[in-house]
């Protein structure tokens, strides 16, 4: 086996866990997340000769996963499957107040955190997770397919919504 190919696979495998976790939160289903990860690997290895050595492998793989997800959903849509509606950017300025209470956050349990995350609109869930994975504004804009200037506000709103959902669970 060629050493280069080996190296690509090794690097990709090292990222299998964050990729799968991301896929799982994106699709909300373990079966779909498995399919998504497998297709991501097939595409990534197929395109590995186009990966620029020294550039960000993680961002590259996350982008392939994201695009694969969108392609799969387009196909499902054609088959009459449903998809989430576009994010409702309703007036949630109230959430962005400065004096928000946070003590309760220490006591929320893992299941509630997952429920709150899954309850976020897809775009919000996406930016929250990508940011937490360590991607910067520019990378998130690229990965989430939105304008760079909107990342920051999307992110603060999404994180505020997450806190608000959690507050409801503990109430």
């Amino acid at each position, binding site marked *: 086996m060629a050493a280069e190919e080996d190296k690509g*696979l090794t690097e990709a495998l090292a990222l*299998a866990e964050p990729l799968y976790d991301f896929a799982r939160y994106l699709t909300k289903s373990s079966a779909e997340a498995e399919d998504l990860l497998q297709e991501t690997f097939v595409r990534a*290895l197929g395109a590995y000769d186009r990966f620029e050595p020294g550039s960000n492998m993680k961002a590259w793989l996350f982008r392939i996963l994201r695009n694969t997800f969108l392609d799969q959903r387009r196909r499902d849509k054609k088959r009459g499957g449903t998809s989430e509606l576009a994010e409702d950017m309703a007036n949630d300025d109230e959430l962005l107040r400065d004096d928000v209470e946070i003590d309760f*956050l220490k006591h*929320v349990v893992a299941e509630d955190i997952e429920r709150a995350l899954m309850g976020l609109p897809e775009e919000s869930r996406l930016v929250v997770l990508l940011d937490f994975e360590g991607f910067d504004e520019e990378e998130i804009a690229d990965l989430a397919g939105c304008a760079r200037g909107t990342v920051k506000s999307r*992110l603060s709103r999404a994180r505020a919504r997450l*806190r608000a959902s959690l507050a409801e669970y503990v109430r």
Partner: protein
Amino acid sequence: MTTLDHARAKELVHENLRGRLSSHEAGELEAHLASCETCRHFDSVERATDDVLARRPKHAPSRELIAKLKTRAGEPPRASRRRAALLYAGIACSLAAAAGVSLVVRSARDHGDPRFQDEAVNDHLRILYSEHPLDIASGGVHQVRPWFEGKVDFAPMDIFEGDDELPMQGGAVAVFMDRKAAAFVYKRRLHVVSLFVMRKEGLPWPRSAQCDGCTFVGTARGFTTVTWSEGELGYVLVSDVDKNELTAISAKMIR
């Protein structure tokens, strides 16, 4: 007095948590937080939110999934197996070419039948990942070979009995495409090496491995295969050791 306004300070709070501030910016932020209760609270909110995210259930890929990815068996459920196999074969070849690795294959067009390579790798994987991979543990070839009598419709003769570098682990009956094969399993350091022996008549045997003593060396999904034939029997050796090493191993086995 600090040089940051609240809006800028809030931006820096988040970047600070991600470790993306220069020491100068970090110093400015620290000074602002020391004197601004509003931004200090904002910093606590951000930290508490990160703490929550860190405690979310992490979904780990199953071991089976990792194994599939590892072996490039990962194939999109809606794409054809053949397409995926060709894709992998294509990558292996183009990367080998790019790396200046000379291909051992005689004819550039003889990549073998992808189904054949695929099956060899699948059989090897069944041995790797099955709970009881071996039907008979090795007490040496003299114990393993007779065990196949009545289980396969040929006598696997002149099988390499193993040595210190490549001890035999045992044997199993495998199914190779439409027929039974005798599988002999060896260990090379931490790598498993499988030798499948079967009647070759009617199988899509690689052209360059048709004649006695000729070998075909291929790669499929990250594994190397060496294929040869002797009379009516065909031999396929599969492992994840590299091409040169597996070729050297096959040299011990070919009469």
